[in-house]
């Protein structure tokens, strides 16, 4: 059956994220002094035909390694909707 899969891609810890910094400054300027460590990445949704949620997750991870994420600069997290 098709599983709905959410892939979250974030810049590697330690890699300068100028978008995150700019948004953090803007939040500060709006008075949200409590916000910190803003990181901006990507969210990808897709449907994967698989035998089980674990199978869907494994396939999504391979897709991340090959195309969806760049292992040099990005980390990813895969979640399968149950």
């Amino acid at each position: 059956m098709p599983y709905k899969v959410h892939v979250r891609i974030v810049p590697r810890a330690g890699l300068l994220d100028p978008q995150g910094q700019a948004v953090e400054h803007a939040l500060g300027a709006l008075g949200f002094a409590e916000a910190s460590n803003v990181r901006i990445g990507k969210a990808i949704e897709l449907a994967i035909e698989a035998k089980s949620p674990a199978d869907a997750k494994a396939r999504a991870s391979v897709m991340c390694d090959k195309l969806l994420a760049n292992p040099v600069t990005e980390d990813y997290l895969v979640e399968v909707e149950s």
Partner: protein
Amino acid sequence: MKRVAVVRFPGSNCDFDTLHSAQRAGTDAYFVWHRESDLKGADFVLLPGGFSYGDYLRSGAIARFSPIMPAVQRFAQAGGPVLGICNGFQILCEAGLLPGALVRNSRLSFVSRPVALRVEQTDTAFTNRYRKGDLLRMPVAHGDGRFVADDRTLKELEATGRVVVRYVGLDGGALPEPINGSLDDIAGISNGDGNIVGLMPHPDRAADPAIGNTDGVGFFTSMLHWTGTASAVRTARGVGA
């Protein structure tokens, strides 16, 4: 005459500049469309600048899987000389033919202006007509030009002389402000054998007296003089391969 394949992707926009520069240097340069799978007997392969596939997902990420790329990979891995300019450099990194990655400029803005480069490595297929320390002026035009790599890779690039060109101030001194936030002000790198080179600045826009700048000509005339011996030379000097 040296045969030079200029690969065109949907969204390439420096393809004609690159073709013209290669032809002006005295090569038999021709276009190869990305849907093709054969480089047609190329001695050299040039990946031009532009915005292949609209920079969707990441710059170069989708072009890297174009039908022509397996041929480019085989060619490069067999020692064939490949130059990636701007988007071409991004594609080479995404394809794993060069290490590291090119990410959003540190100030988030697209930079389009002349920069100065110092030539750091001349044992490559595309910089052998320069001398170490030469100062070149040419334009950059990119949004994703910040070169990043992990510490180990960066140290290795520096230690083995694989930084090919570096951003410097217009007078050759220190940069007054970063161009794009690249680590160590790296503008271009090579693989260990010097046959694969990538850089963000545009020698293809500085290779004709008609436009008032010929500093980039050497990248194209170097092709006429490449004998593919950089690896052996470097091994003999004991600075890695």
